[in-house]
């Protein structure tokens, strides 16, 4: 260590709490396993038996339906489970109305207002696009509508659009964690990387992934350089020219945040151009889509991100029964495996149920929104993906970031993770702390996380 602001990379990574492997310390952040049990205790006080109305908005049409479909399935399954026990507090059955996120942002704003003011929903949930949550969050606040976004992960939502949320929550990890997780995974696995190529969908998600990956990698692997950048439009299916451009820049590593149907088209073309033989590949969302959307031809050894949230094979085996049983039930119900959207919207309803039950235990009767919000703030919850914590200051869900390397395991008809190389990172180590200044308040970085990394992360060596 020659300068005070540099640090040995291995020490740096371990200081970040990065762990690799399917077992061992990875489970450290998981609290004692417990199965989601039926509410055995009867609810206190008088509970109305009117239905509890939820509005679930997700992509039912268009290219992003590949994520929207699992989201709705997770939601439906949770509602069915809760209703099978008589409903919330044993009385209120969950009713769902759906809305198509693909109708466009302005139509979504109208639809949210309609759901609340006309459909009289009690809870708004779902939402995938990071373009939509910043539009819908403020609307939910102005409507005083309890809202639990499953995704729509942009930092912008709680950094800027709704800086002081009251009614709005979000369960999945924030966007900046995606790029940083991929950077850590890449630095961990391929420290020799010097030349990096970028390929991102040309919208805010791609921009954010690129920016945060670069910020992190500059500190984890100083001296790397960006040798190529490509920004295909979201929905592009012809990547041949992008692939050739990437090949021509001869990088050691390609970092990409292309996802969904675009990713499927991309990897199939990249395969035939021999791209995977020439470089390492790190992604943020390769395994984010419904697992069966990928084929066995998917190359092995790719850092296959899941939006740093959840892949159904982890935590695996009997080590975390909540996940095992969730995956089994999900498969039984839908004849397919869940993705992070399925898990997110499934957890959303169960978390709400827990908050309602706790509030009921404290006060009796049906809790009002304020009491439910009080319970959700700071709540810790065991979920299939591990321990989820709702930070009280910004209503953002935090769980350990996770990513892994693709491998063709014989028991599945599609690629999954190499169980021995799963990387987990405690989320607090890659996100700005609670009171860190937001963009526009003392700094003009795009996110609080970006400013935090620039200010506090040292440069590593070795």
């Amino acid at each position, binding site marked *: 260590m020659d300068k005070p602001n540099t640090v040995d990379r291995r020490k740096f990574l371990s200081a970040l709490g990065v762990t690799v492997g399917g077992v061992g310390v990875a489970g450290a952040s998981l609290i004692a396993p417990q199965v989601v049990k039926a509410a055995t205790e009867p609810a206190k006080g008088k509970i109305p038996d009117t239905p509890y109305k939820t509005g679930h908005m997700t992509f039912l049409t268009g290219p992003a339906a590949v994520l929207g479909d699992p989201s709705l399935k997770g939601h439906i399954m949770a509602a069915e489970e809760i209703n099978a026990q008589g409903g919330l507090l044993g009385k209120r059955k969950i009713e769902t109305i759906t809305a198509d996120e693909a109708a466009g942002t302005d139509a979504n704003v109208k639809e949210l207002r309609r759901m609340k003011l006309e459909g009289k929903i009690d809870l708004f949930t779902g939402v995938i696009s990071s373009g939509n949550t910043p539009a819908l969050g403020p609307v939910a606040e102005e409507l005083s509508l309890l809202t639990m976004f499953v995704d729509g992960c942009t930092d912008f939502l709680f950094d800027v659009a709704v800086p002081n949320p009251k009614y709005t929550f979000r369960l999945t990890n924030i966007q900046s964690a995606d790029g940083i997780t991929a950077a850590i995974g890449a630095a961990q696995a391929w420290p020799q990387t010097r030349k990096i190529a970028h390929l991102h969908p*040309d919208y805010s998600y791609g921009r954010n992934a690129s920016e945060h990956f670069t910020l992190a990698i500059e500190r984890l692997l100083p001296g790397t350089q960006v040798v190529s950048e490509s920004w295909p439009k979201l929905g592009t299916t012809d990547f041949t020219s992008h692939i050739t451009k990437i090949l021509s820049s001869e990088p050691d590593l390609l970092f990409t945040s292309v996802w969904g149907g675009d990713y499927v088209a991309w990897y199939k073309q990249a395969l035939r151009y021999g791209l995977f033989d020439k470089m390492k590949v790190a992604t943020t969302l390769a395994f984010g889509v419904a697992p069966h959307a990928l084929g066995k031809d998917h190359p092995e050894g790719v850092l296959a991100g899941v939006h740093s949230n959840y892949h159904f094979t982890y935590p695996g085996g009997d080590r975390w029964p909540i996940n095992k049983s969730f995956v089994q039930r999900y498969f039984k119900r839908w004849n397919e495996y869940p993705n992070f959207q399925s898990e997110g919207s499934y957890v959303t309803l169960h978390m709400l149920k827990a908050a309602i039950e706790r509030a009921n235990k404290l006060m009796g009767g049906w809790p009002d929104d304020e009491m439910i919000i009080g319970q959700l703030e700071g709540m810790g919850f065991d979920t299939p993906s591990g321990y989820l914590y709702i930070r009280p200051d910004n209503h953002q869900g935090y769980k350990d970031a996770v990513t892994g390397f693709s491998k063709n395991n014989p028991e599945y008809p599609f690629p999954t993770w190499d169980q021995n190389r799963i990387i987990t990172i405690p989320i607090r180590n890659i996100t700005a702390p609670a009171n860190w200044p937001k963009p526009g308040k003392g700094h003009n970085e795009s996110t609080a996380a970006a400013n935090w990394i620039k200010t506090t992360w040292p440069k590593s060596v070795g």
Partner: protein
Amino acid sequence: MRWLRERSKVQLAAVAAAVLLLLALLPPFIGVYQTQLLTYGLIAAIAALGFNLLLGYTGLLSFGHSAFFGIGAYTVAFLARDAGIHSMELYILLGLPISALLSALFGYISVRHTRIFFGILTLALSQVLYSLAYKLFWVTGGSDGLRVPRPTLLAGLVSFSGPGSFLRFVNSYYYYVLAVFAVCVVVMWVIVHSPFGKALQAIRDNEVRAAFLGLRISRFRWVAFLISGTFTSLAGILWVPLNGLTTPEILYWPFSGEIVFTALLGGFRNFSGPIVGGIVFTYLKTYAVATTEYWQLLLGVVLVMLILVLPTGIVGAVSRLADRLKAKGKS
């Protein structure tokens, strides 16, 4: 003779006043949701009114009017973000000249062609704006768009913050938009009944003959384009505060398709057609999206049926029906 003319105008004014009064009395009865939806409808009506000056009165089908809606919306967003302006009046006062300037520019380029080439040229130009709004991430926020906080109304006299402000905003804003809408209707009515408006219709019906009256065709088309774009921009200006956010979607070509749909739905050969179309389409799309995930199919079927069965739109069909009834009453 003059008296006769005045009488028909008084009748018209009476009908308009009655409709306006009805609209003004509605909010307490229909609740906040319908009030804000109706506000969206009135805004769509303003956009369609502007669009129809070109389609219905000048005979030019623009497939790029999303550009002007977007220009209005993004102008407000920039004023709010970069100039710290939060007054609706300033949005309008500053937004209109900017919109007019850009409409004039687009129009200057576009009116050199007619028919399908005009449509494709306007489409291409609007797509240039779309791709810029989408690609210039650091200026326009890319697909995230730009947020616009609630502005103050009436030079800061009415402002909205604190609890329940949304409800107050919706109610006040409804009347605000209604007032602007009323002004727009009157202005547009005067325009289409002015010598200029008559000249546009003449150009629409018979370009060659219009030229042989000494009318300078492309000059008239250009001015019509300018007015049309500015009206549609005004709709964009009014739309942003209600929506709270603007994204490149409103610049994308299917949104232009919706504007065309709107005019056709109401009937573009009628003055009131686009107004009715704007309001009906707002409800149609909202409830289609709410009712079925196959809302695109629903809208497509409605569009095709409309063209097949009701080519003159709702207003055209209703007025034909009224004529027939009147004729029956006489005989």
